[in-house]
């Protein structure tokens, strides 16, 4: 009888361990662009030593899992206790308000307050988490290719057209497949579109129809792609809203200029090494501005967690100034913590390219257009980005004309708005 009870209890424990969180268990879903997964594990191991009653599990996943599977898990009431996300606003209904559990709410408001609206539901004042890093989109040039081609790097006021012409010369001289590349992402082309003067947000706060200035950049990008100047591969190698990056092509010296963002610096530092000289260039200019798109990854707590106190302890630890400083210095990410920024950073690298690139991005952040600053906290950004990327790809693949695509983009966004109501 006793034996039977033991077996039943053991079976129940085994079953529960797969379905329920025990007190002290905190699960983090984490994706990495560079080395930040390793840094996080190191930081967390120290936290666990100091807090033996809390066990933190880090599930390292691909970015696509965060983008595609996490929303479904959250909607189904599952998911981790904490997640590192870039989709900050449109999933904000699932974020936990950490306010009642935090050690020092004022610390959070003072140091992370500027970006809290990016991740809150509209009109709310909750504290769901903090930005692990601030990013800014911008370009990277393969300086070795420019030097070998005898082409001068375009200056800080150079336009997209100037860059297209200069890189074309490099590509012809160095026999590389494409002059420049831009990631297959609506977020990535939004900086250039705003530089051309595009405006996404209507007077009522809802999505505005695609305007002539935005259309002009799209038409230029499609033209450069058709002419073989801009890399076709990343844009037409997927359908729908799937994200594709051209980082590997830049690392392999297949393009002279790559428009991505500050998060690529650690990746380039590790993978390019001393193979060639590379520089961050900031964002090329358009008629209206020379702006990149701000953004970043946020670490947010989930409303569905069963251990909010433990989750808050982990968040308090990771957001604390010394830990946030170490994280930024070791991962080479731009921090969002104001105390860290004010105290200065000693990025842990001897790589001169990476150090200069970080400085370039810090400098470029001062020219970010106000229109670009609004978008990370705008509910409909992702709907706009998704429509842009899927339709522009279709034009590049020859499936529809530019005019048809413009109409479809407006219709897609309208459908998303209708569906969300």
């Amino acid at each position, binding site marked *: 009888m006793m034996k039977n009870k033991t077996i039943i209890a053991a079976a129940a424990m085994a079953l529960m361990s797969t379905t329920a969180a025990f007190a002290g268990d905190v699960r983090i879903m984490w994706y990495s662009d560079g080395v930040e997964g390793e840094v996080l594990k190191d930081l967390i191991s120290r936290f666990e030593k100091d807090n033996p009653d809390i066990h933190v599990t880090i599930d390292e996943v691909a970015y696509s899992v965060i983008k595609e599977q996490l929303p479904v898990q959250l909607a189904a009431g599952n998911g981790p206790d904490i997640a590192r996300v870039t989709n900050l606003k*449109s999933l904000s209904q699932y974020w936990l308000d950490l306010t009642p559990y935090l050690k020092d709410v004022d610390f959070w408001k003072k140091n992370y307050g500027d970006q809290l609206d990016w991740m809150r539901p509209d009109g709310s004042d909750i504290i769901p988490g903090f930005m692990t890093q601030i990013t800014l989109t911008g370009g990277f040039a393969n300086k070795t290719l420019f030097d070998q081609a005898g082409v001068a790097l375009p200056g800080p006021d150079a336009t997209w057209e100037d860059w297209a012409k200069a890189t074309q010369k490099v590509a012809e001289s160095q026999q590389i497949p494409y002059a420049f590349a831009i990631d297959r992402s609506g977020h990535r082309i939004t900086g250039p579109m705003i530089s051309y003067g595009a405006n996404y947000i209507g007077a009522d706060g809802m999505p505005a129809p695609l305007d002539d200035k935005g259309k002009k950049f799209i038409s230029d990008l499609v033209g450069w792609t058709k002419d073989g100047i801009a890399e076709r591969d990343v844009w037409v190698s997927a359908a729908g*809203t799937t994200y594709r990056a051209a980082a590997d092509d830049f690392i392999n010296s297949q393009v002279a200029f790559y428009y991505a963002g500050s998060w690529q610096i650690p990746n380039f530092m590790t993978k390019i090494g001393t193979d060639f000289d590379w520089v961050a260039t900031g964002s090329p200019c358009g008629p209206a501005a020379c702006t990149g798109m701000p953004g970043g990854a946020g670490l947010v707590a989930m409303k569905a967690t069963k251990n909010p106190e433990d989750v808050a302890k982990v968040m308090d630890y990771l957001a604390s100034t010394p830990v946030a400083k170490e994280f930024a210095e070791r991962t080479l990410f731009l921090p969002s913590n104001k105390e860290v920024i004010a105290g200065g950073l000693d990025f842990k690298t001897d790589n001169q390219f990476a150090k200069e690139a970080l400085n370039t991005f810090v400098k470029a952040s001062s020219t970010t257009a106000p229109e670009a600053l609004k978008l990370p906290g705008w509910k409909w950004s992702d709907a706009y980005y998704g429509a842009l990327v899927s339709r522009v790809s279709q034009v590049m693949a020859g499936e529809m004309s530019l005019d048809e695509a413009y109409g479809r983009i407006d219709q897609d966004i309208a459908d998303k708005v209708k569906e969300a109501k």
Partner: protein
Amino acid sequence: MASGLTMAVVERIMGIIDIPLRRWQKATGQTGMASFFLLPNMAVFGVFVLIPFVINFIYSMTGGAQIFLDERRYVGMQQYREIFSCGNYLDPNSCVQDGFWTAVQNTALFVVLQVILLIVLSLVTALILNREIIGRSFWRAVFFFPVLLSPVVTGLIWRWILQRQGLLNFILYEWFGAEPFNWLTDRTTAFMATIGVTIWAHMGFYTLILLAGLQAIPKDLYEAAQMDGTSRSRVFWRITLPLLMPNLIVVLVLALIRAVQVFDEAFVLTGGGPGTSTMYIVQYIYEMGFASELRNPGLAAAASILMGAVLVVLTLMQMAASRRNEKKGER
């Protein structure tokens, strides 16, 4: 010792359930007993097939981006009306849901070409592997090996081969000095690549079915034909093909069903591109329901119900064909 123990346990169990079973049979007759034994299967079918199907149908009648049914609003047949709202069904751009019709067209073309090529190649391979060739077992293993691979692995292997800096372009350049070609970003070659890769991945399975059919054909028929001096082609058309027909029908229907469901290898290989030229219907459903920002589970559900209807038709075809074969066999 162990089998003796097992038998003892079985006998004990049978002893316990024997009396209730007999009483049940007496009360319900043979039909009732059949129903009783069908119950476990019906329960599994109900939980894993029927209930999800019903839930999916209810989803297709709702709108909104939410996952939970109680948070979604009832919209009736609106999703279906939107799907079928087309100026011209052959021109997806004239449809409200242009992505759905593009996916339908791509899938239809894929199904026709892939299934024809798959069956022909599987048949030819089976005929060759049925002969006394050197290393026959080795070749059989070679053709069956891709079936064992995960579809994602298959897609990745072929992506590495076909991409701009891939193995194929390297070989073409090294051996023939050919300029690199973007196999996966050209509409035609990317589409054909999805066909080729899925054939490569699944052909071994169908070859095996046909090989089994070929080996079941009595040898004496061939010997008699040989004695009569019948030509090889006549032997193939008059003996092999008719006797292989039951297996061919099974292969045809299974291949059709599988082709309509094409997703994993193609998705990893091309991501649905270039543009939407390899976006098949399952990927469209996945995009609508899971991948796109502000998902549309209602539309995804409606599209999957329509795809399910096509699969039901194909399954009925298989059942009808099997029945016809059985009757022929009886005659």
